[in-house]
């Protein structure tokens, strides 16, 4: 089989496998939990179908679709769908992290907070790096998408490492769908990072890396379809030792999330209170006043002595 034939086969296989994963995912009734993954797969299916149609038309029906117009359409569909996929990948990582951390609510809240900040800073850095004097228009768009995808890939690998090593305290196993999806995303992220380094040395549109890339995506889609086709083992009962850092940090994070109480200390106009409240406060402050000492009967002799000393 020639290189071109292999690339073509993998190109046609990808949307078919994508559709298969989507179908299996929808049948497993887990689509609500993996909504971002469903969106990512849908974008992949749609963009692959459009791109394949354009490539086929440009090669076979030149009289129908002029090559320049075909290339322009292909260019924009490819890069726009790529940008969408980069953003959706970030959302998939976010949802996987949320699902994995669901038993430890405190750590989940803290992790989500950190994740959001990292994601926002990463997007800002991706845009900032793309800003360059010689990059404008389409080149800027491509550079920004490149940075965004690399950011997304690095975050994915961090998530994979976390899920892999913290799988036991979260009650998961390697047969859990959370691990399967993370592993697939990790595989795609590594392929993406390696090909980015590879492509900087090639100049042909149909690089040999297309084969590696195609195999990686097909393998990932097969892994995902296997994980969603077979029933998932239930989460184990999570038993942590009292000295576990997970438990300790979860307790601290839960306490950090508490809404504090507020005390008004000054600048309160009386109109702010209802008449009944004012009355209650008046009575309360009246009760707080010191009680006058009982007046004892002073003997008449003592009184006259005091009066004399005062007049003197």
């Amino acid at each position, binding site marked *: 089989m020639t290189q071109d034939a292999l690339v073509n086969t*993998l*190109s046609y296989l*990808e949307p078919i496998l994508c559709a298969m994963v989507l179908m299996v995912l929808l049948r497993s009734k887990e689509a609500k939990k993996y909504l971002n993954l469903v969106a990512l797969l849908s974008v992949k299916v749609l963009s*692959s179908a459009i*791109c*394949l149609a354009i*490539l086929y038309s*440009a*090669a076979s029906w*030149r009289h129908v679709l002029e*090559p*320049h117009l*075909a*290339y322009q359409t*292909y*260019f924009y569909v*490819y*890069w726009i*769908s790529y940008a969408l*996929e980069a953003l959706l990948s970030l959302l998939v990582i976010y949802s996987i992290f949320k699902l994995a951390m669901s038993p430890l609510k405190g750590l989940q809240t803290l992790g989500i907070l950190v994740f959001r900040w990292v994601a926002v800073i990463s997007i800002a850095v991706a845009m900032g*790096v793309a800003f*360059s004097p010689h*990059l404008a228009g*389409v080149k800027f768009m*491509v*550079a920004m*998408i*490149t*940075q965004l*995808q*690399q950011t997304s*890939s690095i975050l994915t*690998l961090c998530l*994979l*490492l976390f899920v*892999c090593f913290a799988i036991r305290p979260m009650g998961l196993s*390697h047969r859990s769908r959370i691990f399967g999806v993370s*592993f697939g995303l*990790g595989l795609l*992220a*590594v392929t*993406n*990072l*390696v*090909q*980015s*380094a590879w*492509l*900087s*040395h090639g*100049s042909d*549109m*149909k690089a040999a*890396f*297309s*084969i590696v*890339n*195609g195999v*990686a*995506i097909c393998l990932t889609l097969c892994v995902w379809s296997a994980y969603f086709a077979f029933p998932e083992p239930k989460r184990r009962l999570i038993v942590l030792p009292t000295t576990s850092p997970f438990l300790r940090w979860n307790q601290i994070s839960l306490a950090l999330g508490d809404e504090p109480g507020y005390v008004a200390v000054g600048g309160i106009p009386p109109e702010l209170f209802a008449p009944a409240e004012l009355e209650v406060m008046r009575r309360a402050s009246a009760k707080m006043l010191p009680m006058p000492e009982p007046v004892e009967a002073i003997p008449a002799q003592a009184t006259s002595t005091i009066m004399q000393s005062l007049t003197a």
Partner: protein
Amino acid sequence: MKLIARTLAVALVLTGAVASTQISSASTTAKVSVARNSAMPVPRCAPDDPNACGIAN
């Protein structure tokens, strides 16, 4: 199983880390150095390329 999964994950992360250092040095040039996870050809030329990037070949 646990060991295999962990080894695989660590290998993936290390490969990614090494690859990302290579990209940093490559991205200083204004060339397109990224592609979707797909076997489909990467449009590396400008949209107004006179040869249409060889799409018809």
